[in-house]
């Protein structure tokens, strides 16, 4: 199949389902479909000729025999019984999303007054003005075909609204589950609005509950108001047959802080695109991530941090461990506008190659239009430190365990950036498990991923 054929297949899928797609969603969402359709038709599926996809060959992953669900599938079992979170003792507000659809279940505790955590479809009908103010405002559907495709098919996902000056102590945990009898394409759309002076955090976990193949196109738009603070930790753990393209578009007002930490632990293809616009003075953006890829997995990270106002600061750190015949790509861009003086922008990518068949492409890019800035970028690839390994072994620590410790230590720099301590501890356990090869199968339904 060529990328043009795939584009046609997806276009036809839309045309023949356009009516049903619009059924459960509000005008806000539906009104944007025609424009998104035009954009998608014009932009097409990205190929390797596209600079941003030079090292991520999407066509390898996006084609095949897949079903599409216009309405959420019904299961006789309760999802919350089927799914057991791998992260014990984590005290969160838990939300489940099944195949892209918000899954109604009993919520444990009430949230602070005025906070909304709901299905996006529902919110688009219940709070049209609120959704309208932010929906599709931060993602660039005119230039990004996958964002256009998402907007074209968008039905559901999560809507979070935190009104002014509210602090939510416990993280909101969103668990995205893939569970189906057939291979499935999933579209997931999230909108998060954190108003001025508020503070919230979120943990997002992606899981596949069976060995079917899922292709997920997810798009999350995040608005962080003036002096607001939003922290997001993502853990991606899907089976090797599954692919996900996860777009995040962040818009930051003055003096806001946005921190994201992405743990790409397992999956056939994981493509993480992170766009952030620092649209107010003295905004702070921290974009971090760690990934581990083995077998034939591919992990691609694309970041685009746009400094539009003076005195902002951005800090990027991505670390990768590649084994087997895994491939990885890091494409990190920093754009500093003409008037964005006193910008501080840092970026670093370092990778460890455990096998000589693994491959990593790293491309840092700076585009700076004024000379009153401090920017740095760097990329390194290497092996595990042989001296360190020998040191550990000389104390009686076996080769495997010594390697494990060294890899864990390598990841530690990124993990330490997670400010919520219980979350950091739990995530460390997940990293440890993954490095020990214990995450390659799904404990929830006992089906081995391969």
């Amino acid at each position, binding site marked *: 199949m060529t990328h043009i054929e795939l584009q046609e297949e997806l276009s036809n899928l839309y045309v023949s389902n356009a009516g049903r797609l619009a059924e459960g969603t509000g005008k806000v969402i539906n009104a944007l479909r025609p424009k998104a359709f035009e954009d998608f038709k014009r932009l097409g599926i990205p190929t390797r000729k596209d600079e941003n996809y030079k090292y991520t060959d999407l066509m390898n992953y996006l084609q095949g025999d897949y079903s599409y669900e216009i309405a959420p599938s019904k299961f006789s079992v309760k999802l919350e019984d089927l799914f057991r979170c791998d992260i014990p003792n984590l005290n969160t507000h838990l939300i489940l999303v099944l195949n892209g659809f918000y899954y109604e279940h009993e919520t444990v505790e009430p949230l602070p007054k005025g906070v909304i955590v709901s299905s996006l479809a529902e919110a688009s009908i219940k709070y049209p003005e609120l959704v309208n103010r932010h929906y599709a405002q931060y993602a660039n559907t005119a230039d990004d075909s996958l964002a256009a495709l998402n907007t074209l098919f968008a039905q559901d996902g999560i809507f979070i609204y935190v009104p002014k000056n509210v602090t939510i102590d416990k993280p909101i945990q969103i668990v995205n589950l893939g569970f189906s009898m057939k291979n499935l394409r999933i579209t997931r759309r999230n909108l998060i609005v954190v108003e001025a002076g508020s503070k919230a955090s979120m943990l997002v976990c992606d899981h596949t509950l069976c060995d079917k193949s899922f292709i997920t196109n997810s798009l999350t738009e995040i608005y962080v108001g003036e002096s607001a603070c939003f922290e997001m930790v993502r853990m991606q753990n899907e089976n090797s047959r599954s692919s996900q393209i996860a777009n995040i578009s962040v818009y930051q007002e003055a003096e806001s802080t946005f921190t994201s930490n992405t743990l790409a632990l397992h999956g056939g293809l994981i493509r993480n695109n992170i766009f952030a616009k620092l649209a107010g003075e003295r905004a702070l953006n921290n974009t971090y991530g760690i990934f581990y890829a083995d077998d034939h997995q591919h992990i691609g990270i694309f970041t685009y941090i746009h400094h539009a106002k003076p005195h902002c600061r951005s800090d990027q750190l991505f670390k990768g461990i590649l084994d087997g015949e895994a491939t990885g790509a890091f494409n990190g861009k920093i754009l500093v506008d003409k008037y964005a003086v006193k910008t501080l922008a840092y970026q670093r990518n370092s990778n460890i190659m455990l096998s000589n068949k693994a491959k990593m492409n790293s491309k840092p890019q700076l585009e700076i239009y004024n000379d009153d800035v401090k920017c740095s970028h760097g990329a390194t690839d290497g092996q595990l*430190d042989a*001296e*360190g390994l*020998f*040191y*550990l*072994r*000389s*104390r*009686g*620590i*076996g*080769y495997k*365990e*010594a390697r494990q*410790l*060294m890899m*864990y*230590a*390598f*990841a*530690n*720099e990124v993990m330490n950036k997670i400010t919520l301590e219980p979350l950091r501890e739990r995530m460390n356990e997940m990293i440890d498990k993954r490095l020990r090869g214990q995450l390659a199968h799904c404990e929830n339904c006992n089906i081995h991923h391969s």
Partner: protein
Amino acid sequence: MLIIKNLHVSINGKEILKGIDLKVNAGEIHAIMGPNGSGKSTLASILAGREEFEVTEGSVEYMGEDLLELSPEDRARKGIFLGFQYPVEIPGVSMVNFMKTALNEKRKYHGLEPISASDFLKLMREKKEIVDFASSLTNRSVNEGFSGGEKKKNEIFQMAMLEPQLSILDETDSGLDIDALRIVAHGVNQLRSKENATIVITHYQRLLQYIVPDFVHVLYKGKIVRSSGKELALELEEKGYDWLKEEAESN
């Protein structure tokens, strides 16, 4: 305990050790001295199992076993300890995790249960005192940001934790001021027993004022050119290595 016979060692085709013979019994302290580049550190490395070196001839027997057949970790589990000349910094691995893992790997090897958390803490506390090792250091990553003296103290602290039968201290005195040297030496002396042995590798006689050896060997150009009692160290301090070099060359 340790019997080295006619040991020849090369790295990248270059012969460094050219026939070493050495016998170390339990309860003994041996000092190996010699000018720079004589092969002292190579000897330490080969005993600890560094893989870049190649043994071309000879044998090393440890407690009746062929030492050269064992992996570095198995050597450590069987009681060999190398005090590094340049201890390695490992950011991200905490001292506590490092020591607990090392201890438990050794215990597992000997068929023992992992040490309990309270016993481990007790052991840490006890052993830290031997080398006056600050508690703040055990909460940090392995050697990360440690001063030269702290790194060397850390080596002796690890030695105390692991209770080896045969310790090889490679230039443990280098880069130490006199106070740190005393503390390190005091630690080594406290750990001394009839059951274990120590090989002290040093360039200077200084350390041997505090750790008194039973035997002193001089290594020069890959060979032991002289073995004697502790008085040899004093003689070297006074006269330097030149007279031994000349003697060796004329042979």
